[in-house]
C-alpha cells in the first residue's frame, strides 16, 4: 500500500484560549488578542487582551453570583472545591505541560507544582466549614445578652494573580477567597496566562456556579485600575502588582473603602510554603449579633 509512505506527522489541534466570565467562555469584547510565548520566546497561543469593558462585565457576573455562593452552606462549598481538585487531578499532565512551557521549568518541576496545586485545593476545601469556628467567637458581654461574632465573606474580590507562579500561585490566591464565600475576578499572570485560562475549563466542569470565579487575561496595568476604582467591588488582592502599580491601585481602592491585600514581598515568593490562615482571613468581615436573654 502506498498510503504508508504518504502519511505525514499528525498536525496538532490548537486551542483557542478564551476568557472565563459568568460561567461562559467569551472572547474579549474588544476583539483583541496578544501573543503568549514560552520562556524562550516561542509562540504558544494568542490570549484574549481584555478591555476595561470585559473587566466591568466580570464584576457584574461576580456580583450576580455572590448571593448564591455566599449563601451556600459551608459544607456545599467544600464539596465544590473538592470537586475542583478531582477535576484538576485528571488533567495533571495537561497542566504540567502548560506550566512547564509558561515558566520555563522542567516537566518534573512543573508536575510537582501541579500536584501541590491540587493538594492546595483540597486543603482549602476542608477549611470551608471550619474557618468560622476558628475566627468566630461567642462573647461574654456584661449583661443578659446572647452575643455571637461570625465571619462573612467580604463580597466581590479582585485578585491580581502572581506574575511568576502561573499555576500554584494562582490557585493559592483564588481558593482561599472563594472558600470563604467571596466571588472573584482574577487577572491572570500577564506573560503566563494560559494555565489560568485552562483553569477556567476545569472550574466550568466542577459544579462551581458560573460567576464565582471569573478569569481575565491581558495587561494587568490596563485592566486593574478600572477594577480598583469600581464601586461594586469590595476588595482587591494586589499580589500581582508591582510596587508602583500597587500604590496607585490602593489609592483608587480607597474611594469606596475596598479591603486591600498588599503585595507581601518574600511571603508571596514561595508558594510551596504552608499558607497559614492569612489569605482565608483577608476577605472576611466579622458580624456580631446581639439579642436579649429573658423569659
Amino acid at each position: 500500500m502506498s498510503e504508508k509512505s504518504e502519511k505525514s506527522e499528525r498536525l496538532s489541534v490548537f486551542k483557542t484560549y478564551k476568557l472565563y466570565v459568568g460561567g461562559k467562555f467569551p472572547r474579549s469584547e474588544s476583539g483583541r488578542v496578544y501573543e503568549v510565548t514560552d520562556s524562550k520566546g516561542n509562540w504558544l497561543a494568542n490570549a484574549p487582551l481584555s478591555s476595561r469593558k470585559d473587566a466591568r462585565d466580570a464584576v457584574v457576573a461576580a456580583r450576580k453570583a455572590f448571593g448564591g455562593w455566599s449563601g451556600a452552606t459551608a459544607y456545599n462549598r467544600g464539596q465544590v472545591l473538592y470537586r475542583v481538585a478531582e477535576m484538576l487531578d485528571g488533567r495533571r499532565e495537561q497542566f504540567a505541560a502548560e506550566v512547564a512551557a509558561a515558566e520555563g521549568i522542567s516537566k518534573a518541576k512543573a508536575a510537582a507544582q501541579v500536584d501541590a496545586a491540587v493538594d492546595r485545593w483540597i486543603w482549602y476545601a476542608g477549611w470551608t466549614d471550619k474557618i468560622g469556628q476558628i475566627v468566630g467567637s461567642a462573647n461574654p458581654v456584661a449583661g443578659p445578652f446572647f452575643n455571637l461574632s461570625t465571619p462573612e465573606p467580604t463580597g466581590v474580590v479582585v485578585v491580581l494573580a502572581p506574575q511568576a507562579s502561573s499555576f500554584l500561585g494562582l490557585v493559592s490566591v483564588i481558593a482561599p477567597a472563594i472558600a470563604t464565600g467571596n466571588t472573584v475576578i482574577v487577572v491572570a499572570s500577564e506573560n503566563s496566562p494560559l494555565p489560568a485560562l485552562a483553569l477556567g475549563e476545569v472550574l466550568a466542569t466542577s459544579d462551581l456556579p458560573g460567576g464565582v470565579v471569573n478569569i481575565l487575561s491581558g495587561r494587568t496595568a490596563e485592566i486593574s485600575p478600572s477594577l480598583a476604582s469600581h464601586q461594586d467591588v469590595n476588595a482587591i488582592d494586589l499580589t500581582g502588582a508591582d510596587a508602583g502599580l500597587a500604590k496607585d491601585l490602593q489609592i483608587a481602592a480607597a474611594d469606596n473603602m475596598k479591603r486591600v491585600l498588599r503585595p507581601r514581598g518574600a511571603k508571596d515568593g514561595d508558594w510551596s510554603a504552608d499558607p497559614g490562615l492569612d489569605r482565608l482571613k483577608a476577605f472576611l468581615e466579622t458580624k456580631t449579633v446581639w439579642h436579649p436573654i429573658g423569659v
Partner: protein
Amino acid sequence: MAFEYAPAPESRAVVDIAPSYGLFIDGQFSEAADGKVFKTVSPSSEEVLSEVAQAGAEDVDRAVKAARKAFEKWSALPGAERAKYLFRIARIVQERSRELAVLESLDNGKPIRETRDTDLPLVAAHFFYYAGWADKLGHAGYGADPRPLGVAGQVIPWNFPLLMLAWKIAPALAAGNTVVLKPAETTPLSALFFADICRQAGLPKGVVNIITGDGATGAALVEHPDINKVAFTGSTEVGKAIARSIAGTDKKITLELGGKAANIVFDDAPVDQAVEGIVNGIFFNQGHVCCAGSRLLVQESVAEEVLDALKRRMQTLRVGDPLDKNTDIGAINSAEQLARITELTEAGEAEGADRWAPACDLPSAGYWFRPTLFTNVTQAHRIAREEIFGPVLSVLTFRTPAEAVEKANNTQYGLSAGIWTEKGSRILWMANQLRAGVVWANTFNKFDPTSPFGGYKESGFGREGGRHGLEAYLDV
C-alpha cells in the same frame, strides 16, 4: 400629660479644669513649639472651658520620637507587667469616674446620665478587659508569640471622647505598642485628664502621648513616616483620605467610619419596646453616634401605630442642661455640627419629606436641636442616604422581609442594623442578610469590651473590642 421636673444638676465642683493645657509628650506637659493654642468651649453654654495647645508638625514629630523611644522597653516588658499597668488605669478610671463624667458632659455636651452610666463604665471595662489580654496574647489565635507593631498613631472623634480613647489605647498597650493619640478638636479635655491618670498609674513616660489639635495635626500624625499603625474613628471622608495617604507604605490601618443604620420594625414587634429601641437608637448621645439607627424601616401595616407611639414618646424627651440628671438629650457638640444638621434637615424638607418635632423649649445659649423625625422619605432623599449625625430620624416603610433587606442594604455604609420582631427564625434570617458589622435584634446601641465592633463597606475595616480587636495591634 407632661410631668414637671425640678432641676437636678450634677455638681461641677467635682472637676477642676485648669485654664490651659499643654501637649502630653514623653510624660510631661509642654507648650506647642510655635506656642499656638485654641479654646475649647462647652457646647451647652458656649463658655470657654480651657485653652489647649495646638500641636504642629514639629510637636507631632517629638511625640512620635518619644513613643518610638518608649517602645523598646514597653514591648519587652513581660505581658503580666503591662497588664498590671492597664489594671491600674482601669481602677483609677473607676475611682475618678464621677469627675470624668462631669468633665465629659461639660466638654462634649452629652447628658450626665449617659456619661455616668454608659461612657465611664465602658471606659473602665475596656481597660480591664484588655489588661487581661496582655499576658495571654499567645492564646489569642495569632500565633504562639505575636509581636506588636510599634508606634500607633490614633485619631479619635468628639462623640465619645474618653470611650474612643479607651478603645484605641487599651488594646494597643496590651499588645505592646506605644501610642500617640490625638483627641478631637472640640473635645480635648478628657484625653488630657487621662494623661494625668497615666501619671498616677506610673506608666513609663512616652508609652502614651496625647497631642491636641485640629485636622492638620491629625494628618501630620497619620502621615508621619515613623508610625507603624494608623487607627482612626471619624468621618468616611477623612477615612478615605487617610486610606489614600498610607498607600505604598507598610502602615497597618483600621478605620471606623460613618453609618446610616436601618432599624427595622416588623408588624409582630411589641410596639412599646420597639419605640424605646427606636428612641435609644437615634436620640442616644444626640444622635452623634456612627451606629445610630437613623433610618427607621417600619412594616407598612403597623406604620401608623408605631409612628403615633413614637411621637407620643418623643414629646416626653427632655432637651437641655447636660449636667441635669433628668436630661435625655444634651447639646449638639459644635456650631459646625449644628449647621450640618440644619442644612441636611432643610434639604429633607426641600426634597419633599414631612418634618415633625415635638414642641420643646431650648436654652438660649449653646447649640441645640430638637429631636426630629421625617416621614414620606424616599430612598433617594439625602436624609435617607447621608449621615446626619444628629437627633434626626428618617422613616421609610416596607411590606416584605425581602424589601426590608433590600432597603436596609441600599447604602454605602454597613456599620450596624436593628431588627424588631418576635419571630426567632426571621431574626436569624434578617441578621444573615444584613450587610452590617453589628446587628442588634430586639435591642439597640449596646456595647461591650468583649464584643467586636466595626463595619462593612464604607463604614471602614477592622474590629475594635474582643479578641478580634487585638489583631489591629499585632504584627499578623
